[in-house]
């Protein structure tokens, strides 16, 4: 079925009614020099059969690699029921409905999602989701500038242990809004942000401190000390967290004496499959005190005129359809489909299931690092606890090693050289509950061969 239901006769009748000759005439107002003209490089349309074949060929090219790649997107087992339910007609829409209250089922689902995320993070309130973890981090920085009314500097402390992509997205998103990000170095031995390094900011006007837990290296930051230091200096704390890890680690609402002020993260690990970078979803939570500074949609529970329970969009005065340019954000939507999957995933797993998943994933990661570091020329880069992901230091260049592993159908991790040149030949590796001891043996054997085939770094 065509998506545009107008026949040529319909179009001609409508044009005649307004006295226009062609549809093109409706765009006369746009000056010719502002028009992009023909779209060079965009091929002709393909029909369904052709596009299906093209996509199958592309998918085959990806292969079915054994993946030890994490770095922000994680392969977890997704119970078959999750996507069977998500793709039911009642749920299969990627968007907040425009007549929101007419879709009570969708609103209830979002409400349940918000409740689960708020409990997982131990924060007061969650919104209906953001685009992804990176954009949620950027929005959290903007939100902190609005919420920290004691601070006028819009200066954000950003540890270099925060995901490099998140840092870039935050800088790009906010570059015209006067925010300044101060990059904080990490401790070379431990791969975490030393609380002592913050002392130089005492007495300066700082708006917020970002803390990622586990950090990009998989290491656990000293979140209590960082949070308490920030609060002692009037600085808000933005937590960036992995939702799976929260089944085991202290949730951001309990960091330090007062808890983080805003907690965000990438929701993909909760039932969303790895898929060429997306679509994933971000989540965002805060304390009730700052709820009016939070971007995005929020679903609330209420009573109708007859006293019956129901769900409604709430606190909309923050949003752009009401406050125009002074809205808290230009995000007035959510990632409906991915959020539906996450809600069903979490309800199927339950708190105990999520805890078992997190523990099993971490167990496999420990097994992996133990196996790999038994090879000569491989050692862990940082001492101290980590969660299901770790940095390995190789004694020869990482890129050719990864290429050799790739040729054997193994995604061996992420080479960090481009992001952290000072780490030299470092590899970020991850294992989850999806990996078996046999998988880990296969990786170890392939890595041993790949190292032998690769010349030692000069």
């Amino acid at each position, binding site marked *: 079925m065509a998506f545009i239901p107008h026949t040529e006769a319909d179009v001609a009748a409508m044009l005649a009614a307004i006295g226009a000759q062609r549809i093109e005439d409706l765009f006369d107002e746009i000056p010719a020099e502002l028009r992009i003209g023909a779209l060079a490089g965009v091929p002709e349309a393909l029909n369904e059969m052709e596009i299906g074949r093209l996509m199958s060929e592309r998918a085959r090219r990806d292969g079915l690699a054994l993946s030890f790649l994490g770095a922000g997107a994680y392969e977890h087992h997704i119970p078959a029921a999750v996507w069977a339910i998500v793709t039911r007609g009642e749920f299969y829409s990627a968007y907040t409905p425009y007549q929101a209250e007419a879709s009570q089922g969708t609103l209830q689902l979002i409400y349940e999602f918000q409740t689960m995320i708020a409990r997982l993070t131990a924060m007061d309130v969650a919104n209906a989701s953001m685009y992804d973890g990176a954009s949620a981090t950027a929005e959290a920085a903007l939100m902190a500038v609005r919420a920290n*009314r*004691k601070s006028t500097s819009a200066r954000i402390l950003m540890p270099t242990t925060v995901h490099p992509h998140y840092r870039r997205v935050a800088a790009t998103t906010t570059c015209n809004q006067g925010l300044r990000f101060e990059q904080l170095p990490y401790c070379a031995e431990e791969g975490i942000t030393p609380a002592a390094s913050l002392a130089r900011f005492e007495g300066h006007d700082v708006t917020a401190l970002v803390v990622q837990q586990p950090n990009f290296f998989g290491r656990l930051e000293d979140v209590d000390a960082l949070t308490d230091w920030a609060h002692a200096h009037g600085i808000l704390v933005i937590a960036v967290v992995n939702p799976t890890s929260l089944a085991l680690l202290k949730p951001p609402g309990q960091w330090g004496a007062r808890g983080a002020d805003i907690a965000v993260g990438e929701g993909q690990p909760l039932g969303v499959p790895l898929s060429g970078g997306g679509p994933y979803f971000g989540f965002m939570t805060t304390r009730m005190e700052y709820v*009016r500074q939070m971007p995005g949609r929020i679903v609330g529970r209420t009573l109708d005129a007859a006293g019956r329970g129901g769900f409604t969009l709430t606190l909309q*005065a*923050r949003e752009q359809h*009401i*406050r125009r340019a*002074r809205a808290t954000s230009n995000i007035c939507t959510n990632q409906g489909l991915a959020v539906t999957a996450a809600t069903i995933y979490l309800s199927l797993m339950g708190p105990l299931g999520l805890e078992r998943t997190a523990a099993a994933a971490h167990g496999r990661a420990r097994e992996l690092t133990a196996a790999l570091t038994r090879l000569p020329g491989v050692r862990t880069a940082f001492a101290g606890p980590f969660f299901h992901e770790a940095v390995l230091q190789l004694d020869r260049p990482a890129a050719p090693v990864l290429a050799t592993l790739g040729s054997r159908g193994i995604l061996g991790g992420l080479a960090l050289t481009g992001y952290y040149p000072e780490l030299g030949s470092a590899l970020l590796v991850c294992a989850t509950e999806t990996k078996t001891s046999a998988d880990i043996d296969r990786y170890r054997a392939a890595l041993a061969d790949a190292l032998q085939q690769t010349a030692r770094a000069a």
Partner: protein
Amino acid sequence: MSNVPADLRYTRSHEWLRTLSDGTVEVGITDHAQHALGDMVFVEVPEAGRAVKAGQPCAVVESVKAASDVYAPLAGEITAGNGKLADAPETVNAQPYGEGWLMRLRPAPGALAAAELLSAADYQKLLDAEAG
């Protein structure tokens, strides 16, 4: 019929001003404005110490119907925001000219003279004209 106290001065955007004995100026929204907005659910007031320009948005009043900016009627420095409104926004409805004040500011030199303020009589005329 709106209450328009004779001893206050007014803006076209429905704020009122009262000059206090220490020379600072108290600002709120008028009875007409609170009535038009309806029941207040949230009020955001500026922090003390903030410098404002005339016409700059510096407070937000949110009712069940709408969220509106409140503008600084003249240039100066905020000396106080009415923190009690955070827990009791309905005070703006009940006592718009009293306990429901939004902020106090110290006018910049010459700002009071430069501000285009209305007398009670002129503000009443504005309301009559708007009611048409």
